[in-house]
Structures are given as C-alpha cells and as structure tokens.
C-alpha cells in the first residue's frame, strides 16, 4: 500500500517537473551558448530528482533514461557542450519519452529505451570530439524564441510551485522554509537513491504515516529535518564531479530567490469541497443579511456582527478562490513546442512570442481552455503564416510571427492570438460558405465583412484548401467556439487580408462565483452575469425609447438602435392572463453584450445585484443553450442563470448587431420617424382588435369588474373618491360580444380638460410600431383608420370622434365657446397620407378652408401662391424640408413673420420642443388630440387676427 502510494506521488511530482522542462529546454535552445545557468540547473535538478526517485522505486527504465538526460544537462552546466537545436531536439524527445513512461508507470519497466539512450549518450561525445560532423540537422527552423515577460521569467527560475519533495515530506514549513530548498532537492534525491535498507527510508515511511496524525509527527519531522540537513552535507561532499560548479550555481540561484512560500499539496477535491462550502456560506450570509435587513429588532450590535460576518465571508471566499487560481502560463507552456514542431513539419518559419504567462485564471478554466487554444495556435501556424517564399513575395520577413497574449481586462481575461500571416478574405469565405451550403447566396450578399469572418465558426466550415494532418483533425472552429462559450467566454475574430489575423478570446476569471444582476420576468427570477451587462436602462419614451423598426423592436439609446429582446418571449414561460399592468407596461431594459453582439433585454423588473454561486444543472438540463446553470438565491429558491450568448442566438441576434455604427441615426434626422406610432393594442373580442395612439392617453388603470357602476344607463368608475365617466367601444361601433375577464383596463384620456375612460376588455400590448394606416377603409365614426398589426386587422380609434358620437353634449359646450370662424384658411403640411386626411377631415368639419402640402417645400410653395393663409399646421418630420425648416423660412420672410405655426408631433421630447420654439413655432400639439388641436388653432387665429386688427 505504502509502495503504491509512493509511486502515485512520484508520478504526480514527475509530471510537474516534466511539464516545465519542455518550456525550459526551448528557452535554453533559444539562448544558445549564452544560456541561463539557473535554467539549466532547474532542468538538471528536475531530471535528477526523477532519476533518484525512480531508482528508489525500482523504475529502471525511467531511471536509465533520466540518467542519460542528466549527463547531458550536466555537460551543459559545465559549458562543455553548447545547447543547439539538434541536441535540444534529442533532449526534448527524451523528455517526451519520460513523460509517456511516467504516465504508464506500471508498464514502464517493460519499455525499451535503448535506442533513445544511445542517441542521448551520443551527444556526450561532442565534448571529446568537438562539434560532430552531422549531416543535416533534423530541425529546419531556427530557434524559437519564447519571450516570456519578466514575471514569468522569475517564475521560470524559481520553481513555480515550490512543492519540492523535501518540503512535502516533512510537512513542517517553518523550519524548512529557511533552508535552501535546492539543497534539499539534492538531499531528497540522495535519499531516494540510497539503498532500500537505508535507515533513512524508514524515517521516510514513518514520516509519511505520521502526516496523518499531525501532533505525533513533529518529533519525526524534526528528526527528518536533522537527517536531511546531514544528508545535504554528505551529498555535497560526495558530489566530487561538479560539486564546485553546482554549489556556485545553487548559491547563485538561492541568492536571487526570495524566500519561497511554504506550501503543501492539497487534493483538488478538497479545494472543490472548500469552494462549495464557501459558496454555501455566501448564500447563508446573503440570507442572514436579508433577514436582518427586514427585521424590526435590528440593533447596532447585530448590524456590526452582520457586517463582520459579511467581511470575513467575502474574504474567505476570495482566498479560497485564490487557491484555485493558476497562471495561464501552465497552458501557454506547451505552445513553443507545438509551434516548433509544426513549423519544421510545414516547412515554415514561425516565431512564437508570448506575453502574460503570469495572468492567473481559475483552474477549471486553465484546463478547459487548453484544447481550444491549441487548435487556434495550430491554425495560426498552419493556415495563417505563409511559407517563406510566399512571405518574401509579399514583402514580409521570412519568419512569421505568432503573438500569444494574455491580460486582465475589466474583470475578465483576454487572450489574443495575433499572426502576421495571410489573413482571411471575406469574399472567399462567403464563396466557400455558399459552396458548402453553410449559407445561401442571398445571405452571402447581405453579409458584412465582419459577419463573413464569423463564418469560420459555422459548423462544417473549414478554409484549408486541403485537409492537413495539422489542423484537419475533425474538430472545427465551431467546436472551439462552443467550448469557449461553455466557459462563459466569447471569441471574436478580426482579419485583414494579406496582413494577418487576430483572434480574441474573452474569459471570466472564475466559473464558481459570478457577480450577477437578478431580474424578474413573468413572475420568476433570473440571474444575469454582470460580465455581460453593459448598462441598465429605463426606457423613458424620449431619448431612450423602444421603437418598432421593420418588424423588430429596437431600443433607441443615445443615437444607437439596439435590437430589443423581450425576456418573456425568449423564455416562453407564459403567465396567466391576469397580468399586472406594470409588467405589460415595462420599460426596464438591460443592455447586454455577448461577444460582438449587443442587445437590449426587456425584463419586468431589475431586482438586485448579488454574488451568486453557480450550481450545475443535472444532465437532463445542461444542454439548454439559454441557461448557464442555476443558483440558489438568498431566500432559498432556485433561480436560473441566463446565458447571454444563448439568449442572443435564441433571438437569432448573433452577430447581426455588430453593425451598430451603421445603425447610428441622428435623432433629428430619423427618416420617416413619424410613421412610427406608439400604440396601445386592445381587443374587444377575438375578432375585434383596436389600437389607440399612446400620445393621447393620460394613463391606463386596471380595475375589477365590480368597480364599474351603471348610472342612468351610462357607466362610471368609482375612482379616487369621485367618478370617472366611461365609454365602451360597443356603444358606437359594431363589434362582437366583449370577452371580459375579472379585470379590465381603463384607458384614461382627456377631452376639453375632462377625464374620460375607455373600457378595454383585454389589453394586449403597448408598443412602437411602424404601420401604414388606411384612413379611407373605414367610415365608422370614431375610427380614424385601419391597419394591420401582427397580421391582425386593427382599427385605430379616434377617441375624440368616439366621444363626440357618444357624448355630444361635451362638444356642444366647446362649440358654443368657439369664436365664429369665417372660413379661416389653414395650411396643413403632413407627409403621412393618413394623418393628412385625418387632419383635413377634422378641420373641414370645423369649417376651416384647407390647403394641403406633402412636405415643407410644397408647403412653402402653397404659402406663396395662396395669399391670405391664416395659420400653418405642420408636421415636424418630413422629407425635403421639415417643419422646423419651414418655420424658419416663414419667420425669415417679412410677409409671414406673424403667421401662427402649430407643430404636430408624436415625439414631443424636450429637445425638439426647445428647437421648435427657437425657430418660432407658436405651439406644439399631439396629432391625434383633436380637441386640444382645435382649441389651439382657434385661439392662435383669434390672437393673430385681433393683433392685426389692432395694428
């Protein structure tokens, strides 16, 4: 059992040593004769301890091979042999072999390494013969410079994880940390080399069992330390060969080193468990804080205890997270070799430069990113970098450069793979994609270059002219992207044809604890990772508003149009019809970024930000693309974590929004903006759907059916101590029987300062839509026109017309007050045919003489050719010359200086109102608000006439 345990530990340890050796050998190779003594020493010691331990455990093959390697390294160390691509190549092969032997340690003794050993030993002859006559070096390429950053260089010299056997063995960090660890390495090796019956072995075993009972082992540890100390002296005395050199080197290394932190080896499972417990603690803390926050009995003492707990928990969590962090260099380490081997295989010259090896990421991410990165690196060398002759022809240096960079950016890790190779041609990609049936020719035509680049991530797409054994391994870029996205990361690509390609991977630092925003939709809570959230927006109907553009909802935000996705629709969790109006009316929007895709997610509510602990979903659910997992909220309920990329793809948004710049529109310049209507959609019965312009609606109330009373055949709503007169659609229009639920909606609007409610049996939605309204299709009074929304015929209600039919007495009062109109002439400028005819009809009924114009230019012409026009009613947004422009011209002309101008708008935001007033607009009116418009017209005409009469 003990023996087995030792072998397992040996394998672990050897694996660590070997993982670093490759990178170190390549660095030695790169520096050639000027190699770094410390580096060679590090490699030497690693091989030495493998050799020692293998010998001790009776692993002859490993022992034999490492012995040969050690010999060569010893000669390097003495500068008797100079490292060159050839001998490093042999050493690398040796290290490879050691690694494979180590992984199958049980069978290692049956393996035959003679041939390799002979090759390695042959290097030793160089010393005696001088430079041997080699035919052609097996490596075609020049040295590969792995250019680590300073931090990693330091780490390269000092053991990255100072888990030397000696420290592990004693488990007594204090006395050992002051010792020279490299010396202890030697001692360890010496211990291992010694014969089985050596008393030290007994110490060893004794000590190992002692680890279990920490208290008991202290004495043993002391003894061991003592013995180890003695052993160091012995060992150093024994090492007659290169003792001097070695000691010097050791001393040099030691002096450079800061005292290494004491460390112990801890199983990953223990860390995972700790991590889980910390997660639970975070949850409990959240729960506690919430309870205390809600409690009435809170006291200062309780608060301070809670605050203390909060702080400790946070710190504990961070510290435990820290234990799982590993430098990304652990993955990068293998790439120099990958590039080196690839370039010789492909006959290319490729130099790999790496930066940011020291950037730390959660262990799970380090592990999971290795394969995708390897694929991308291989791709860069294989497809990206051209052959030397091609490069020369293109005026590039023979040697291609692949730059691998890792860095922290805003709480994320960004890895970039940049090559100066051939780049990708968007047109070629499109053509290939069409050939392969990935996209259709029409799709290709409408694709931007950036979208085309993303084609390489499409399943079944490979750009290599021929499948090479290098990149064509059956895994496509689609797998790469999927794997990265699984980690909560994203990948972007940018390429300039003939210049090079940049692939940018963004990863979260950890997968375990995610700062998130908790949002509610349809009565359930969801977590949205903060990393995806750009901002929270409450659409205010003005600068930030939700609009309807060519069949899709968008959020207009600071001049950008961002595609809007309603979380409800995406989730498909349908909720009862008894919807809270507040939810229907929601304008709470979270702007989300996933890779290059940016979209706005409309939610019912944004609740809170919370650090959530990601809990995996069972295998039944882990394939759901919408979800990144689940979490447990402070109140113990489970909430789903939304996957931003999944939501985007569900909404078929992926990479369609990356032309955000092209979508940028100038607010004042929005083409045909007036064709968008903010409509309240309501249905009376299944076949009768109506819309009301939101511009005339004061508010919407939800009431119970029993709150509506009938008084003298008319319905009223008991309301804030008074009553609100109500009208029903069926009173005037032909409709089917109303489908009335237990609750109804009342759309409140004003007629001559009086509040009136329209009963809406079913309220469907409030939205911005672009509709063509046919004003002639319907002659019913109270209906302004007919349009089609969502494929359903919808009648646009003219609330004032409806009132006029149903409650003519209200209008009588107004008509009495109205001054006598002696055929005043009004010019109506409006580009929308529907509104123009609506206005003309309305004004004609009132006895005005109307001149009409389709835009400002026509309006201007009409003014010139029709003298005696008393008033201009103009739309703001019009082609050619808009309402403001027209007003400016009017005001600039002596003849029309005093002509009253009313601007009509449905977008009465402050900025445009201010602009209107500055150019000389007298009043603003909402298009559909007939009473207000009429009042305004007669008032303005009256004033202007009386003025001119006075003068």
């Amino acid at each position, binding site marked *: 059992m003990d023996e087995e345990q030792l072998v397992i530990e040996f394998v672990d340890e050897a694996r660590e040593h070997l993982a670093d050796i490759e990178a170190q050998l390549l660095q030695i190779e790169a520096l050639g004769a000027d190699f770094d003594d410390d580096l060679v020493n590090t490699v030497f010691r690693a091989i030495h301890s493998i050799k020692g331990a293998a010998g001790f455990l009776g692993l002859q093959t490993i022992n034999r091979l490492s012995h040969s390697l050690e010999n060569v390294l010893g000669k390097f160390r003495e500068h008797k042999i100079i490292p060159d691509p050839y001998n490093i190549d042999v050493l690398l092969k040796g290290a490879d072999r050691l690694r494979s032997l180590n992984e199958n340690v049980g069978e290692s003794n049956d393996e035959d390494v003679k041939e390799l050993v002979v090759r390695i030993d042959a290097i030793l002859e160089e010393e005696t013969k001088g430079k041997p006559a080699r035919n052609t070096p097996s490596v075609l390429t020049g040295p590969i410079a792995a250019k680590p950053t300073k931090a990693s260089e330091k780490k390269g010299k000092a053991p990255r994880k100072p888990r030397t056997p000696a420290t592990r063995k004693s488990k007594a960090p204090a006395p050992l940390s002051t010792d020279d660890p490299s010396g202890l390495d030697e001692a360890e090796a010496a211990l291992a080399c010694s014969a089985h019956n050596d008393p030290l072995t007994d110490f060893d075993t004794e000590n190992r069992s002692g680890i279990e009972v920490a208290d008991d082992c202290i004495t043993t540890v002391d003894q061991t330390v003592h013995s180890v100390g003695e052993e160091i002296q012995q060992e150093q005395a024994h090492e007659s060969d290169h003792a001097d050199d070695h000691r010097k080197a050791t001393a040099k290394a030691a002096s450079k080193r800061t005292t290494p932190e004491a460390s112990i080896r801890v199983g990953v499972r223990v860390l995972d468990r700790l991590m*889980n417990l910390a*997660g*639970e603690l975070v*949850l409990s803390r959240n729960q506690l804080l919430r309870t205390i926050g809600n409690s009435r009995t809170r006291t200062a003492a309780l608060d301070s205890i809670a605050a203390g707990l909060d702080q400790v928990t946070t710190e504990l969590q961070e510290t435990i997270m820290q234990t799982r962090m590993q430098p990304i260099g652990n993955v990068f380490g293998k790439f120099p070799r990958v590039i080196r081997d690839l370039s010789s295989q492909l006959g290319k010259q490729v130099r790999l430069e790496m930066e940011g090896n020291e950037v730390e990421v959660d262990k799970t991410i380090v592990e999971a990113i290795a394969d995708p990165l390897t694929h991308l690196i291989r791709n860069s060398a294989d497809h990206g970098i051209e052959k030397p002759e091609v490069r020369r022809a293109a005026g590039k240096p023979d040697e291609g450069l692949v730059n691998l960079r890792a860095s922290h950016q805003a709480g994320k890790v960004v890895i970039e793979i940049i090559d100066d190779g051939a780049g990708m041609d968007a047109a070629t990609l499109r053509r290939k994609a069409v050939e392969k049936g990935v996209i259709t020719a029409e799709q290709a035509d409408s694709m931007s270059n950036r979208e085309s680049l993303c084609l390489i991530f499409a399943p079944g797409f490979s750009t290599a002219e021929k499948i090479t054994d290098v990149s064509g391994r059956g895994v496509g870029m689609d797998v790469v992207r999927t794997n990265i996205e699984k980690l909560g990361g994203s990948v972007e690509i940018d390429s300039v044809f003939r210049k090079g390609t940049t692939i940018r991977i963004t990863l979260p630092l950890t997968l375990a604890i995610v700062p998130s925003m908790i949002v509610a939709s349809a009565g*359930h809570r969801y977590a949205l990772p903060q990393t995806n959230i750009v901002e929270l927006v409450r659409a205010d109907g003005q600068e930030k508003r939700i609009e309807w553009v060519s069949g899709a909802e968008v959020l207009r935000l600071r001049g950008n149009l961002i595609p809007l996705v309603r979380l409800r629709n*995406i*989730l*498909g*969790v349908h909720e009862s019809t008894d919807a809270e109006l507040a939810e229907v009316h929601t304008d709470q929007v979270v702007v989300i970024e996933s890779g290059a895709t940016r979209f706005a997610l409309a939610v019912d509510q944004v609740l809170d930000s919370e650090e959530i602990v990601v*809990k*995996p*979903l*069972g*295998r*039944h*659910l882990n*394939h*759901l*693309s*919408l*979800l990144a997992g*689940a979490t*447990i909220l402070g109140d*113990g*309920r*489970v*909430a*789903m974590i939304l996957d931003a990329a999944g939501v985007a793809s569900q909404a078929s948004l992926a990479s369609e929004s990356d032309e955000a710049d092209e979508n940028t529109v100038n607010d004042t310049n929005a083409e045909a903006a007036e064709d968008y209507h903010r409509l309240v959609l309501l249905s009376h019965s299944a076949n009768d759907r109506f819309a009301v312009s939101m511009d005339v609606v004061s508010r919407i109330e939800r009431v119970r059916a029993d709150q509506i009373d009938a008084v003298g055949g008319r319905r009223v709503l008991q309301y804030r101590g008074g009553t609100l007169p109500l009208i029903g659609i069926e009173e005037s229009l032909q409709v089917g029987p109303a489908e009335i639920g237990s609750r109804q909606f009342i759309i409140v609007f004003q007629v001559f300062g009086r509040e009136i409610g329209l009963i809406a049996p079913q309220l469907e939605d409030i939205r911005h839509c672009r509709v063509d309204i046919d004003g002639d299709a319907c002659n019913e009074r109270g209906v302004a026109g007919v349009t089609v929304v969502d494929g359903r015929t919808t009648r646009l209600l003219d609330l004032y017309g409806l009132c006029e039919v149903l409650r003519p007495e209200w209008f009588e009062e107004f008509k009495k007050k109205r001054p006598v109109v002696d055929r005043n002439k009004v010019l109506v400028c409006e580009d929308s045919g529907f509104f123009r005819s609506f206005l003309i009809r309305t004004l004609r009924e009132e006895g005005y003489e109307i001149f009409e114009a389709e835009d400002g230019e026509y309006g201007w012409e009409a003014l010139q050719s029709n003298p005696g026009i008393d008033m201009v009613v103009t739309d703001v947004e019009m082609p050619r010359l808009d309402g403001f422009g027209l007003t400016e011209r009017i005001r600039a002309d002596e003849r029309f200086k005093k002509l009253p101008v009313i601007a009509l708008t449905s977008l009465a935001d402050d900025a445009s109102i201010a602009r209107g007033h500055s150019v000389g607009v007298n009043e603003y009116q909402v298009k559909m608000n007939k009473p207000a418009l009429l009042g305004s017209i007669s008032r303005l005409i009256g004033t202007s006439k009386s003025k001119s009469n006075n003068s």
Partner: protein
Amino acid sequence: MDNNHPHQHAPSMLQLVTFGVGDCLLGVEIEHVQEINRQLELTPVPGAPNSIRGVINLRGDVVTVLDLHCLLGLTTPDRSRTSRNLILNIGGERVGVLVDHVSDILAISPDAISRRPPNLSQVDRRYVRGVHLRDEAVVVILDSHALATAATDASQVA
C-alpha cells in the same frame, strides 16, 4: 408487510416504495429512494422538455424534478395535500419525482414480478421494469435507471 413472504429482509427480497401517480400505483426499489419531502415549490426551467417539471433546492444542490405524469402519459393531477416529492438517488445522481401520494413499502420476491404487459405504450414501456400483482391492485415497478436517463432522452426528442 407482505405476509406471504416470511423472510422479508432476506437479501433476495426486493423492497419497493409504492406511490400513486394519477390512477396508477407505482413502485421503485427502496435503495434508490433517498428521501421523500414536501418540496413542491418548483422553479420552472425555460426551454426544458415537458417531462421536466422544474428544479428544487435540495440543501444547496439543484435537483431536477421529473414529471412522471408526462413521462408515463398519465393525467396531470392537481397538487394536493398528499403530494410529495420523491427524491431518487441513482448512482449518485439525484432526480426528484412528483407523486400524488406515497403509499407503502412492499417487500416482494423477485419472482413475484411479472414481465411488463405488452399493452403498455411504447413510451412508458421504457421506464417500466415489470408489474407486481398485489391483492386487487397492480403495482407498476419502475426502472429507476431508465428514469434517471428518461429526461435526457425526452429532451433529445423534444
């Protein structure tokens, strides 16, 4: 529990937890039942197949709850006072099953299991290991392993 079999606890005996779902009396082996609780407040999972009712928080772990009614093609019942959440633990994987009521624990000899009747529909056959006749009633013995993978199959279909 079963008087015909005096050696109740003989290792060869099969102990079943029986429960009602719709009009059916079902049973699963007791070693696969981790616990029975009243956690009926589920969080729905958007995009999940119908056979998954939702998830619960089982002491810090998120556990999937299956809808047996849907899987076996039974009528969906109203949640009642006797409804329970049966947590199965099958090879370390936990799955919840909503049942209308928990009935009894039966010990039966493996010989007392008849093969599944051929008139079961194709869908629910997969989850049925056999039937046991007990007095008047028929206990349909479910195949726990098949249940554990049930939702994955169903989700692929869905």
